[in-house]
């Protein structure tokens, strides 16, 4: 919505690249083992130096772990959960949407009704319930986020497929004897990819927020492994005495989601045919 006034898409992409870089290289660039507790160095403020253990640039947490290392490692959890859950939902949602849009009739009715039903349970609650039933784990987290969000893509893919499928050249390809899977993959998918990418980008930001939220509630990444959400949950108990435990992971989380949302907006201006007409 900022149109051409977006403060430099290059800066946004650069920042996101740094996030990805840090997340991928986390095990090699953390200054300390993010799980190692030094009980003598509990709740130390940023820029603490210990002759035996070295620098703690962002301070330490309530059991004496290096906050910087935990925040860096948390980037890994955050981006991995975001990327994997978006992949799961994008893939499954698109397939259902393509099929419903192509076959129409009762298949479309059933699929779109299921979409309505899943979307009637607010996503956070659906995720909370499912994780609680299955038990929290990394795989369950991805599964749950993937399975609660696919209908968003299905709606878009369905609407777009309906539109594209009636275009003359698609009908021409059909009459020329091309099979449905080939038409769907070769002709329709490329045409609907733009709007789907826009949805996937905003969903990526949302999934990162969801992961942090679930971890904050104790239903996501399980201790002792760090996630921005769980670090902040631990930090909340010490908010008056150790502000750094909530402020730094929060800045990282806010920053990445902001970048993703700005990117999504930039993409929308370019890829969404409805936005272009405005």
């Amino acid at each position, binding site marked *: *919505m*900022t*149109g051409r*006034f977006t403060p430099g898409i290059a800066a946004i992409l650069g920042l996101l690249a740094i996030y990805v870089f840090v997340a991928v290289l986390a095990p090699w660039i953390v200054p300390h083992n993010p799980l190692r507790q030094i009980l003598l160095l509990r709740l130390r403020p940023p820029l603490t130096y210990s002759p035996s253990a070295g620098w703690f640039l962002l301070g330490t947490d309530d059991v004496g772990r290096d906050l910087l290392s935990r925040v860096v490692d948390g980037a890994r959890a955050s981006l991995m959960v975001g990327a994997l859950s978006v992949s799961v939902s994008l893939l499954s949602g698109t397939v259902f949407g393509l099929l419903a849009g192509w076959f129409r009739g009762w298949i479309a009715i059933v699929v779109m*009704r*299921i979409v*309505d*039903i*899943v979307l*009637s*349970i*607010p*996503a*956070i*609650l*659906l995720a*909370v*319930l*499912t994780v*609680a*039933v*299955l*038990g929290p784990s990394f795989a369950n987290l991805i599964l749950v986020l993937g399975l609660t969000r696919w209908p968003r893509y299905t709606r878009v893919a369905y609407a777009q497929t309906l539109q594209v499928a009636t275009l003359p050249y698609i009908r021409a390809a059909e009459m020329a004897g091309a099979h449905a899977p080939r038409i769907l993959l070769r002709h329709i998918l490329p045409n609907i990819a733009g709007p789907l990418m826009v949805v996937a980008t905003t969903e990526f*930001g949302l999934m990162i*927020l969801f992961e*942090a*939220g679930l971890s*904050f*509630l*104790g*239903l996501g990444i399980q201790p002792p492994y760090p996630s921005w*959400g769980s670090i*902040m*949950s631990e*930090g*909340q108990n010490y*908010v*008056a005495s150790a*502000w750094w435990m*909530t*402020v730094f992971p*929060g800045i990282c*989380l*806010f920053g990445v*989601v*902001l970048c*993703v*949302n*700005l990117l999504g*907006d930039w993409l929308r201006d370019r890829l969404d045919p409805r936005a272009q007409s*405005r």
Partner: protein
Amino acid sequence: MLRHIAGRVGQAVVTTFGVLTLVFFLMRLSGDPTLLLVPQGASAHQIAILRHQLGFDRPLIVQYVAYLRQLLQGNLGTSLVQRMPVASILGSRIPYTIELAAGSLVVAVGIGIPAGVAMAVWRGSLVERSLAALVFAGQSMPTFWSGILMILLFGVVLGWLPTSGVAGLPSLIMPSIALGALSMASFARMTRIAVLDELSRDYVAAARARGLSLGAAVARHVARNAAIPVVTVAALEIGNLLAGAVIVETVFAWPGIGQLAIQAIAARDFLVVQAIVLFVSFVFIVMNLLADVVYAVIDPRIRLSS
């Protein structure tokens, strides 16, 4: 109009059944729902007895019918942990969540809609860019983080507002802002798009050609036309606010159903969790239905159709 609304009611009923069915199967995803309901440390024998008492040893279809019948009678079951009807546990918490959701909605609507209108009317100006920054911030801010930051600033450092719990209106301010920010962003975005859409239409040019100012044209004509998509967002956002309460209520120790859900999960009181999910979904479906009724009232093309 009645036929239109009747159709929507029919859809809502189907969706409600769908939600009930989905939750029924979700509760059985782990294989044995009995394990979700027993207090911790129960022996195998106790579990077997409970399984039989709750009917979880019966065929799935029988369980499903019993589950539907029970819920359709308005019976949410009895909590095995608290040994109280789930309905009364929920009932004591719902008013708090409604209070919080209402406060958040005031924040979201009160800021989001004027911001959206301003962004559309002053498109490309400094006004739009500043408001866009606000919208992006709201959209990207984790509720628990903004909540904790506000507690730190206004509660701990400045001491202006209570940091948690329920103590009249002041205690509602921070949770409402934390929870309302994301919805505020949605309202602003949707309103902006809806108003821009309408501003480009000929009837706006025609109204101005009649001597109306842009402001008067927006107030008299654009507002109502743009309200139609915004009402949809309102229905959607009320559902999101109720769900988002899970996190915000935990941060602020607000004794609504969101906090209850997390407490119930910790206490393995799954009938309560199930009831909360069903309740929020039901509210969401009813809100969507209401949105459809509102359309029909606003739009003569639906209102006057037979």
